[in-house]
């Protein structure tokens, strides 16, 4: 596969460059896949690359789009953020893809944004993120903070009666912004500032003894303590191990994680973690026929019955199918036409219900809260009605006045107070 693409890319590179945007109906319609296949993010992103290849193959079996076959153009940005920008430029100018599915980390998205906007590309971004961004050229199929963090916090406040919060995160943009929003939200809900403990640790942190002890000590004033974890990746292993060693059960101090899914738990012995929580828009254990079919197709494609499915995969599944429908509807794969056709697209979720693409380029999706089971899966214990994604959070004063509406207002950062468009390009 790879060698074929690299040969075409070489050939293309030799010929290219001068030709402008190709007529969209040219067959095949090219789908760029911009996920790291090497480096630190490869473990998460390779799965999404495979998902995209599966979806493209399925679509081609079903007759392609507009009578054309789809062709997946896979490049490897190697977990190197500047390389993401370079590869995005290559996809758009050398391979002339019609749409890109890709990115995982926020920093890689911020790296790609200027290129996508300059060349008017189209990116589907499948991972939950911190919001505070709206680009004309990006559709965010992952959760915005109000589709993951806020409902989970509500659950803590309402259902678990948590009165004191420990916000633990890895020190990067997603936890920082999310915790900022949550702090503001908790204060609005009557939690005093001194009842919010915030801690940031580096990527891959392993020495958790002191922090876990600090969290346990938070309970000293008789309030119910809860942990909201935006700890990323490997660091979770040490964290949960230390929690278990300290004998902290979910009944004493519940932990809700936003970055721990089925994939992450597969590297862990979860018997000590039963009852801790995670919030996502999708869990593999969702009991619907669509999900069963998806899991079966995934296992057949990857040839391994043990592989799990996760939330970003569902995001790609929804995003890809919406894009296909939008192309069919627009009659062309040309970016501007497809974008207009995207608004109001609906597609069934894997967890039941229907996702809808909003004019702010976010989806409306239900929020699920799951309890970790001993087998590394989640018991879904709460499922909300579909929540519309909000690009600009309502819980920070600077962002509360902003709204995003690319259809009517044609602006992703519209100040409702001054009634002006702050900027057309996005923040990066």
């Amino acid at each position: 596969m790879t060698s074929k693409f690299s040969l075409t890319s070489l050939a293309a590179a030799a010929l290219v460059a001068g030709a402008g945007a190709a007529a969209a109906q040219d067959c095949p319609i090219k789908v760029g896949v911009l996920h790291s296949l090497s480096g630190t993010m490869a473990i998460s992103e390779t799965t999404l690359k495979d998902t995209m290849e599966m979806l493209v193959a399925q679509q081609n079996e079903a007759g392609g789009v507009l009578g054309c076959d789809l062709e997946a153009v896979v490049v490897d940005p190697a977990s190197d953020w500047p390389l993401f920008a370079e590869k995005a430029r290559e996809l758009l100018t050398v391979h002339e893809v019609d749409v890109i599915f890709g990115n995982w980390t926020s920093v890689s998205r911020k790296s790609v944004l200027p290129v996508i906007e300059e060349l008017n590309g189209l990116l589907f971004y499948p991972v939950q993120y911190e919001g505070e961004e709206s680009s004309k050229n990006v559709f965010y199929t992952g959760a915005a903070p109000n589709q993951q963090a806020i409902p989970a916090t509500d659950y803590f406040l309402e259902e678990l009666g948590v009165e004191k919060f420990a916000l633990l995160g890895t020190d990067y943009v997603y936890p920082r912004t999310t915790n900022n929003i949550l702090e503001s939200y908790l204060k609005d809900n009557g939690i005093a500032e001194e009842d919010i403990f915030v801690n940031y640790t580096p990527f891959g942190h392993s020495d958790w003894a002191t922090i876990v002890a600090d969290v346990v000590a938070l309970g000293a004033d008789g309030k119910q303590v809860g942990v909201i974890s935006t700890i990323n990746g490997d660091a979770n292993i040490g964290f949960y191990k230390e929690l278990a060693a300290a004998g902290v059960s979910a009944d004493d101090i519940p932990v809700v994680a936003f970055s721990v899914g089925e994939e992450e738990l597969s590297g862990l012995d979860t018997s000590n973690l039963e009852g801790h929580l995670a919030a996502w828009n999708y869990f593999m254990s969702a009991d619907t026929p669509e999900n069963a079919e998806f899991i079966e197709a995934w296992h057949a494609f990857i040839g391994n019955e043990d592989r799990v499915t996760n939330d970003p995969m569902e995001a790609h599944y929804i995003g890809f199918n919406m894009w296909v429908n939008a192309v069919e509807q627009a009659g062309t794969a040309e970016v501007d036409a497809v974008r207009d056709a995207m608004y109001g697209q609906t597609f069934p979720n894997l967890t039941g219900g229907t996702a809808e693409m909003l004019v702010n380029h976010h989806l409306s999706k239900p929020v699920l809260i799951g309890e970790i089971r001993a087998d590394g899966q989640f018991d879904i214990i709460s499922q909300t009605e579909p929540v519309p994604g909000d690009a600009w959070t309502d819980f920070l004063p600077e962002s509360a006045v902003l709204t995003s509406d690319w259809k009517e207002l044609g602006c992703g950062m519209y100040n409702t107070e001054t009634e002006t468009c702050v900027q057309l390009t996005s923040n990066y």
Partner: protein
Amino acid sequence: MLRALLFALALCICLPSARAQQSGGETLQSVLQRHAEEVADPGRRSVGTVIEDLVASGLPGVSEFLERWQNKGVFVRESDGLFFYAEPQGNGYALTDISTLEPAGTASDMTEIRPNGGVRRVIGAALVQFQLSDPDRARRVAALDAIERSPDADQIDPLTQSIENEPDPAIKRRKERLAGNLAARFADTTEERVAAIERLSSELDVQTRSVLNLVLASTARAAPSLPEDANIARVLTPGTDITEAEAYARLVAADLAPPAASPDQIKALLTSNIVDGRVGGVPVGQLNTDDGRARAYAALIDDVDTDVPALVTNETRAAALSNHVFFEEYAEPDPAITDAARAALDEVEARVARNQMLDISLDALSLASIYFLAAIGLAVTFGVMGVINMAHGEFIMMGAYTGYVVQQIIPDYTASLLVALPLAFAVTFAAGVAMERLVIRHLYHRPLETLLATFGISIALQQLAKNIFGTQARPLTSPGWLDGAWVINDVVQIANIRIAIFVLALLFLGLILFILNKTRLGLEVRAVTQNPGMAASMGINPGRINMLTFGMGSGIAGIAGVAIGLYAKVTSEMGADYIVQSFMTVVVGGVGNVWGTLAGATLIGGLQKGIEWFNPSNTLAAQTYMILFIILFIQFRPKGIVALKGRAAGD
């Protein structure tokens, strides 16, 4: 299938009715059906009514039901909404009738009821009265856990009654302590409560502190003057105890002062009142300063007769603040109780602070032992032989992966650990010897190039590990007897695995010292270190000694890898996390001396924990400052803490 269903249906219609006569027409099922929706999807705040009803019914199966409900053992049958206990059986479930506890056939359209953590806690609290004197020890512990989680005045009596007949001394002690905690908060008379509170002052656990803190709960208030009848915790001075803005916000919240216009409000009002390019007589062009806006706003609020917020200047604010007092008032009206609680809490907290120091010291010791273990191999190769081995971290990784692979083959964790430790040593020993023979031997007179060549090996090994094991972290699970922690008290505790690592580090310290100082090999190593030429002329083969020394250093790295993997994680990059740390440990400690490495590890571990102690919310900063400190430290003691003196110092 259908027959089974019908049978089940018949069962639940007939059997309960048979029981029904005994308890006045009520069965558990019928009580539950009255609250069907709430039982199937319980919420923390609303579940109370169901439980009350259940308990009030006095039916015999209530406690059993509550327990099963709590543990996700209750199912609802979709077809008729009846509740059952169920066990998965084949594709369906084997049902048990809730009221009679008799088998009720099988069914497949069952939905598991999953009460969330909050509901489980409420149920647990309701179960307390059933469980406190239960013959099953685990149930009694569960009841005490529930009391700890949600203490309540009603629990005092059943708890005190159950103390007397408690057979288990540990549980009895715990019951007594809990009863004391409850008495401190809920006892009827002041004397009883003060006495209970005073007894608490000798404790230090989290529950005690929470009891005292709850007794001392206070609210912030503002008033024109200090009220006479209030039990005042403390009086706050604006500007020192709270900021002036905060104080004013409290006045506004208490309706004691008018709300101030925020810059946004000012701007909005000005924007909506632009008349012919002027606002309140001020030209729009002059509104680009706060001063100009204030003038326009002041002029405007005289004209506009809406209830817009007033412009609060610094003077009016200061006046409002000086006319009011700010204080915190205890929720508990009785000063005798709050005074006693304050005194007790001060005492407890002083004890907690002392214990926290101890805890941090233990953590620091643990971290130091991890650094020591990671660095001791390096201390041998770098310190004794003067060879920079950048691939040292990868040897650690190799050891950890060896442990992982062994665990895949031998499922018993204890046995696999016993195999993994020597195997990791053997694997990395071999790798070290191979590296020494193939690469390092040729570079002994070019130390900088050794650094680079071993770095090349390091990136190759790291990538190799990624290719073989993938980039995802691999589990290396410690045996059960290493789980858990050594709990000295509620504040001071340390995970068993860390103790094990500490012991391992001590073991290796002793072993290395023994080998270097008491064996023939050690003598030869020291001889080659000091003067290879002279050693060679005395009949020692320097090549062989170098090879063995290097292998030994690498082998210890492999064992360190198993230990580190047990407490943290196994990834291809784990070596890189420790390599710079390890080098600094060796360099700070002083090259060529095992005691120096120990001192270096202690210093670095202690320092890192110390900085974290001062700035608990930022672990990254602690690492940064630690490295800066080390850089400075080396400026002033370039030879490290334990510097070799005399001839042994060599260069």
